[in-house]
């Protein structure tokens, strides 16, 4: 693989357009925190997006922010926090240096997406350089917009296969004033699934609800006005055995989740589209392979980590390999004629890798 420092790195959108125009086969690369997304055939030149960075428009009163695709998430998170706001989909790998564009390309959301929705529910606009090196502004910069097809949403999880995202706009929310995390005892996978389903349907409006595969626990996070959290936590602890975690322990836990620091160093990492009822099967899958796993979003997101040199195998659930070798789409992926037709509509010359690359 070419070292990142020697890659062409446009610093402006105009430079990006010129670079795309002059490069017949290419793939955009962010900070490389999800390297499998850009592990494509050598014929594709890699373009570093990290210099195309910076917040271009932030209107706290509108609940909207726009930034260039190479902007590190930590810059966006910090700017929002200064004004008491946040990205409710709770992005992953913020400290690791992940960029906004890479996060969209992977479609990665964190545990906080439980309450208000995933990344797809907060993206409102994109400036995309398409297969003909045209800069297209799709979607918009207002929180509600139904004009034209929703291509910004389509690009979530598209892994750079349809174009290079130059700039992205998001809806943001006011950040809840306080949080509490509860560690609930769940001795086995069935108990975990039961708590995940019951707690996410209950009145408490949980902010996050995750489960560790290798630990007999479910972690429930409350977020809201400070005075509301104690009685809510008490109510939850009347239903299940457990305890409120100390702020230090909770902070360590959630950082470990969002930075994926529980995963193997140098191993493979796979995101799995799960369902709550499939949690026991996922847990069993992880355990029988000597792997590590994490269950997020009340059982809707599974993360699977394999030790170095272990190959990602085909999974029974839709899955995306973020790190390591193996198929990019590691689970069942339906193939319809329309998928090829839309790829052709946006990238007739095949400038970007195909859906199977």
């Amino acid at each position: 693989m070419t070292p990142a420092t020697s890659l062409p790195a446009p610093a402006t959108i105009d430079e990006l357009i010129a670079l795309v125009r002059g490069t017949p086969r290419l793939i955009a690369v962010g900070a490389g925190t999800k390297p499998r997304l850009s592990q494509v055939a050598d014929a594709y030149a890699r373009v570093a997006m990290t210099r195309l960075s910076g917040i271009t428009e932030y209107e706290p009163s509108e609940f909207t922010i726009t930034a260039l695709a190479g902007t590190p998430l930590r810059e966006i998170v910090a700017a929002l926090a200064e004004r008491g706001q946040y990205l409710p989909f709770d992005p992953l790998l913020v400290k690791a240096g992940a960029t906004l564009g890479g996060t969209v390309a992977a479609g990665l959301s964190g545990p906080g997406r439980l309450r208000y929705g995933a990344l797809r529910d907060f993206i409102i606009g994109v400036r995309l350089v398409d297969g003909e090196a045209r800069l297209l502004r799709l979607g918009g910069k207002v929180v509600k917009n139904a004009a034209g097809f929703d291509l910004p949403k389509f690009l979530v999880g598209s892994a750079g296969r349809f174009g290079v995202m130059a700039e992205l706009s998001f809806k943001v929310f006011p950040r809840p004033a306080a949080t509490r995390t509860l560690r609930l005892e769940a001795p086995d996978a069935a108990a975990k699934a039961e708590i995940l389903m019951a707690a996410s349907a209950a009145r408490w409006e949980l902010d996050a609800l995750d489960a560790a595969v290798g630990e007999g626990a479910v972690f429930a996070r409350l977020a809201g006005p400070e005075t509301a959290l104690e009685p809510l936590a008490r109510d939850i602890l009347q239903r299940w055995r457990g305890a409120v975690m100390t702020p230090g322990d909770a902070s360590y836990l959630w950082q470990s989740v969002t930075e994926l620091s529980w995963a193997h160093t140098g191993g493979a990492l796979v995101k799995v589209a799960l369902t709550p009822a499939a949690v026991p099967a996922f847990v069993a899958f992880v355990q029988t392979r000597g792997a590590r796993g994490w269950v997020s979003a009340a059982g809707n997101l599974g993360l699977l980590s394999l030790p170095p040199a272990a190959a990602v195998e085909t999974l029974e659930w839709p899955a995306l390999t973020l790190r390591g070798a193996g198929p990019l789409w590691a689970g069942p992926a339906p193939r319809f004629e329309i998928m090829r037709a839309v790829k052709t509509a946006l990238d007739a010359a095949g400038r970007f890798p195909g859906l199977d690359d």
Partner: protein
Amino acid sequence: MPTLATNPVVERLRRLLPTGRVLEGDAQVAAYECDALTAFRATPLAVVVPETQDEVIAIVRFCRDERLPFVARGSGTSLSGAAAPVPGGIVIAMNRVSRIIRIDSQQRVAVVEAGIVNAAISMAVAAHGLHFAPDPSSALICTLGGNIALNAGGAHCLKYGMTSNHVLGLKAVLATGEVVTFGGPSREQVGPDWTGLFVGNEGLFGIALEATVQLLPKPECFHTVLAGYRNVEQAGEAVAAIVASGLLPGAIEIMEKLALDAAVAAVHAEYPAGCEAVLIVELEGTREAVAADRARLDAVLAASQPVEVRPARDAVDRAAIWKGRKSAFSAVGRLSPDFIVQDGVVPRRRLGEALRKIGEWSREMGVRCANVFHAGDGNLHPLILYNGAVPGDLQRAEALAGRILKLCVEMGGSITGEHGVGVEKREFLPVMFNPDEMDCLRRVRAAFDPLGIANQGKMFPPAPADASAPAHSGSAPAQA
């Protein structure tokens, strides 16, 4: 079978469906000549009434083979002409394809057919303490398929997002006849978001047959407040103050004087005297969180110079507040024989400026205009009144509507927040998108519908010689 039909296409269409489910002739199709945007009308060749997904698929494949334009229609509540027929094409009435296939209360998803009425989903899952969040004002009659086609909104979009955010998976028949399933029961998705792309296609890709939708726990507690203001600017400033306070209400709505008068006349809504505008704010959530947020909201409202603040004391009060708001569109019918409901979006901080301009233009052009809007989203709904029987009145109303839409784009907003482009706003789509962007949208449409038969003439402005779009009616000289 002897019928009045002589059209050979219709004869062949009849063979696909049991007797009585292909309607034709003026009397039978009259009810399908327009949607809720009554200024646009067209006569379809026939209306077909499938009852199963397989019948819909067979009809679409027939249309593809015959190159016959088709329009899928639910209850016809679209306000942008998106569900109006194509002249000489067929209307596929989806209301009977409306089964609930599966409710999984544990995983909080439901799989339902597209013809189901929006509110029926929430009713079906209410016993489990769940609900389907998208709630357009027409929720009691509009179908999910229509919500999906237009990516409908409603009063609660600020917090919960549009229909798209709640559709996890889809089965659809595309205009090519290909039957696809996108997404699935997981709230996580892998790969390009095909479900997200399909939602909001305005019927230009094909027809949604069934959807997997996410269900949310019903909020435990509501705190709904109606606040009256001397003028709309003060109401707008109150919205800004609420947003700045860090609160995230479920809904923030404003109604202006003319809409208030209409609601009073229609449903006997009661509003504080001497108010030019009222603000409706609703907090929702756990009783603990609402109790805490309520104190903050009360303080913000008290400082916003209201004429009067009326918190709903109980569910009956709350229902009365929402009844006045949700009936505003139809209530305006009492003030005017005809009206256009516009649907532009502006950045929230420019709401006051937009409303001032609309007011000036309304006076200058002699066209009455009542504003109702989702203030939390910057989504304006100017109700532009006209009388179709008065020559030139519709044209004046449309001219005002056009100025408003262009203003929305100039301010950095959108020509539609939730009603879609349809036939009504198609000439304004190029105001939002440059020729390259329009070309991109057209190519995507062509990928799904190479023959251009699905909801032909909608969303995209017609080429100069294109006569496929529904025609103007009312007092339009084109009809004369």
